């Protein structure tokens, strides 16, 4: 076991979402719910009660008719690294139910450990966490269709996007069987990435220069992972949460919507 797993280089799984490609169809949300056994309510129109891990928000530039532009922004968990793995939610969890793994960069959530205090929900600036007010109820026979690789949650606990971590577990399992220590980029992809019909979502290891996500945003690890690509930005960049989900857009107003800027301030994207 020692030599088998000790020397792996640390990975930093991250996501890049091209907002110029996103059509707001919501296929990522559906794929996510199906993959991760996310329960749904009879009336899902009340978004405050929904438990979707991946949410697509709609933004407009606020201008009147001829200049009106719309942009849809899918929002999974950002898997913030903060400084040294102290992401907002991990720092406040009194139960050690959520944790940051330095080997993968993934913020884990252990549902059986969580006791539902919801500090993490208050701490998360992205509203990426949801609370189960009820036990999940699936329509007849749908329980047989649940994904066995993802444990279901009960009422009273918080859940969130895991970057489909179970797919990493499966990919590693196959790699070990084939006596490999590393997996290829396409062996571990999230459900939303594969479901997106526009190909707007890219997923991979931000530390690996061969992976698409690295090439798209060129993260500057010496400066908290800030993107060197001027069209790339992260939500609320200046909070210092150091998220691992990047967005791409060529439109200035979209980039401005990603953080709070005063009136004549320039956008921070591009790293300065």
């Amino acid at each position, binding site marked *: *076991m*020692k030599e*088998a*797993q*000790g020397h792996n280089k*640390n990975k930093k799984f991250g996501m890049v979402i091209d907002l110029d490609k996103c059509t707001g169809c919501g296929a990522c949300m559906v794929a996510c719910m199906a993959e991760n056994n996310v329960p749904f309510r009879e009336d899902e129109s009340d978004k405050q009660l929904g438990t979707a891990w991946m949410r697509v928000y709609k933004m407009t530039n606020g201008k009147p008719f001829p200049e009106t532009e719309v942009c849809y922004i899918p929002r999974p968990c950002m898997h913030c690294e903060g400084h*040294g*793995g*102290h992401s907002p939610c*991990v720092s406040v*969890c009194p139960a*050690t139910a959520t*944790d*940051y*793994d*330095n*080997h*993968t960069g*993934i913020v*884990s959530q*252990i*549902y*059986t*450990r969580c006791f539902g205090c919801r500090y993490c929900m208050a701490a998360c600036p992205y509203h990426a966490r949801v609370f189960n007010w009820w036990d999940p109820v699936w329509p007849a026979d749908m329980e047989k269709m649940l994904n066995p*690789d*993802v*444990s*279901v949650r009960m009422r009273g606990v918080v859940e969130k996007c*895991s970057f489909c*971590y*179970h797919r990493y*577990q*499966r990919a*590693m*399992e*196959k*790699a*070990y*069987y*084939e*006596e490999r*220590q590393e997996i290829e980029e396409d062996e571990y992809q999230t459900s939303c990435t594969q479901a997106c019909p526009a190909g707007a979502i890219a997923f991979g290891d931000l530390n690996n220069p061969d992976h698409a996500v690295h090439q798209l945003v060129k993260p500057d690890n010496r400066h908290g992972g800030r993107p060197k690509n001027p069209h790339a930005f992260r939500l609320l960049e200046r909070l210092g949460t150091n998220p691992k989900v990047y967005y791409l857009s060529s439109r200035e107003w979209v980039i401005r919507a990603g953080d709070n800027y005063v009136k004549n301030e320039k956008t921070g994207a591009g790293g300065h």
Partner: protein
Amino acid sequence: MSTQDDQTHAVSEQETEGPAAPIILFFIIGFAASLVLGWGIFPKLLYSQKHQPINFNHALHVEEVDDGCESCHYFREDGSFSGIPNLESCMECHEDVIGVSEEEEKFVAEFVVPEREVSWLVYSRQPDCVYFSHAPHVIAGKMACVECHGHIGESDHARVYEENRFTGYSRDIWGKNIAGLAKHPWERMKMDDCSKCHVRENVNQGSVQTQKGGCFVCHK
């Protein structure tokens, strides 16, 4: 005066000494009763006893097959493990009755002929939130079957499956000892047991919160 004082003193001594012996006796009886209740009766009430559908004889099978454990418990191409072989694996040999045992006859009649999967009770079934894979342990970690499972290959009968009435988990998770003590890995399979070995072998000790293993190493 003094004699009277002595007398009253002697009387009061007698009074305090009198009831002490029954109290100690009472305490001992109560203590023994609670021990019997806690160590003997409570575990019996806590666990229901179930029997395997077929009284499987590991020793007999290991003698007959060529590859030892791996003859039936093999890795599939996707890295998953045949912890409980399916009926198809059994039918490679048992399409018809090939031995003389009554259990085999029962097996063929009840499962092979109607092509019904055997509903084995899995002693080591972990709770839903636990992720376990054999590949990193057996292939990457080069661990032998016995290290975790003990000498199950030498057993000639399927032992009684005990199920916790509250949680529905197998007793093997908590362990046979109700105090939760264990000498060997196969006597108990709780989180601390996984963690103990993972800390020792330095397996993915990347957690920020605990400085130990990342939660998602063994959870899903």
